[in-house]
């Protein structure tokens, strides 16, 4: 069986700055891949390329062998209409550093917006499901709160529930705890750990080395838009082979 998510020779430049330089990645079902590296190493851009929020300039991304946004025809990749990409994106959940909840919708409304509007599901059924999901992230008592009434940690957990509501095959996390006060980081990491234990496939950009070590099944170290080193959490974090990885880790600990 092929990988659930495959990135093939991705390259992405912003003007003259090459943010992602020839990055290939395969993520198997149930794997938790942690992308680590200094800020500006391109790890967030790699993640954003995975669901084409930043469409790659070269290379492609495939979910279960279906290439995102393009089709192979006559030895070329031809771009598909935007609605095809929108449909494909439903399989990929994403959680942002800044939460990005919809500010004028309650927690429940945030969660049901896409299932009802995009998948045309039944409202009453989705409200019930949203309450289950919010319960799962420990927010049963906040179902009718607006984002502005929630703490950062609570907002991020609503954002996780919102992404899960689309029943994605893989979840992308873009520094999910970087905007949080230190005492709120744990509640979000616990939800993510639970998710990993339930078998969710995840790609996580993070600075939380403990999370990477305890939850990550694979750790990928990036620098200058390239993958420098990857392996199990034990291999990369405890006995890094590359000098750059060693220097980065010695500064982090």
């Amino acid at each position, binding site marked *: 069986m092929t990988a659930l998510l495959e990135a093939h020779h991705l390259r992405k430049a912003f003007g003259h700055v090459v943010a992602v330089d020839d990055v290939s990645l395969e993520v198997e079902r149930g794997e938790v891949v942690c992308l680590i590296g200094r800020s500006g190493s391109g790890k967030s851009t790699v993640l954003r390329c995975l*669901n084409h*929020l930043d469409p790659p300039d070269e290379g492609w991304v495939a979910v279960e062998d279906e290439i995102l946004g393009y089709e192979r025809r006559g030895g070329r990749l031809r771009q598909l209409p*935007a*609605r095809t990409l*929108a*449909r*494909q*994106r*439903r399989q*990929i*959940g*994403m959680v*942002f550093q*800044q939460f*990005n*909840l*919809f*500010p*004028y919708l309650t927690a429940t409304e945030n969660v049901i*917006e*896409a299932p009802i*509007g*995009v998948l045309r599901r039944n409202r009453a059924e989705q409200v019930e499901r949203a*309450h289950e999901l919010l*319960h799962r992230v420990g927010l*049963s*008592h*906040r*179902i*009718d*709160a*607006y984002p*502005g*009434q929630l703490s950062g940690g609570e907002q991020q957990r609503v*954002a996780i529930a*919102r*992404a899960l509501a*689309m029943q994605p095959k893989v979840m992308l996390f873009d520094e999910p705890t970087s905007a949080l006060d230190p005492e709120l980081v744990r509640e979000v990491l616990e939800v993510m750990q639970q998710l990993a234990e339930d078998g969710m496939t995840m790609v996580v950009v993070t600075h939380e080395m403990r999370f990477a070590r305890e939850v990550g099944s694979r750790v990928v170290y990036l620098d200058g838009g390239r993958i420098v080193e990857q392996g199990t959490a034990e291999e990369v974090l405890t006995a890094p082979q590359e000098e750059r990885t060693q220097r980065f880790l010695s500064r982090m600990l």
Partner: protein
Amino acid sequence: MTSATNPAAPDQLRRRGRPTPERAPATEPLVPRRHFIRTALAIVVGVYLIAIVHSLITNERFNWPVVGRYLFDPLVLGGVLNTILLTVLAMVFGLLLAFFVAQFALSASRLLRAAALVFVWLFRSVPLLVLLLLLYNIGALYEFIPVGVPFGPAIIELPTTGISAFAVAVIAFAFHEAAYSSEIIRASIQSVPRGQAEAAMALGMSGSRTMVRIVLPSAIRVALPPLMNQLIMMLKGTSIVAFIAFPDLLFSVQKIYTVNYEVMPLLVVASIWYFILVSTLTIVQQLIERRLARTTRRRGTAAAPAVTA
């Protein structure tokens, strides 16, 4: 010290509408400063206001009985209706056009962006009155306006000679409104954090759905006050259609006072109607804003009582 011997402190609290705590003050009472200049200024302004109202009542040249007689004159009421009709139509077409111009201005295509830029530049540069007169006399430039393929066959040809003052006014005001409002709409869309749209796209929403369900609800809260400002300015601005003899509110009272020479009372009649129309719009604006603010207002209060599932 007990509160009975020191009535000042609880009294102050009561005046600000807070619940009066039944307890002795823990420390000396706080005495607010007196603002002599502010008080004096208020008295002066008050006296001037009374003087203005007094002159309105006592100056016979206002001729209030004539004002009263013509306030509900059928000709004046017809003018009021025409002004409303013109404003509403120009607003509807103007806002529709403005939305599309704003979308052009935000397009990825450089040519579409340039087209939006030229449109705004053109219709903001030409004074409304000049635009009105140009369009009214468009027959001198084009006898027919062909609708169809440019340089190719026309499906219909609209004659410009018999064009009514009303149609000219609606078109002129709609274009003028569109140029200004498109900038308001563009800026309000840009004011919505990019993350909102990104979150929606990441959930698999289409571009148009993201715009309608996620971006516009946030943008409208920013755009509403300046758009209403724009609408109020246009409502009053419609009075210049009197130049092309369209019987709006101003033109109607002009028709009356050229016959009976009661110029001032009839201009007061027009002012009263404009005042009523603008006040109505202001109230409508406040109602809409209060409705839109509901979710933001609830933010501050609902944190305390925990909602149980």
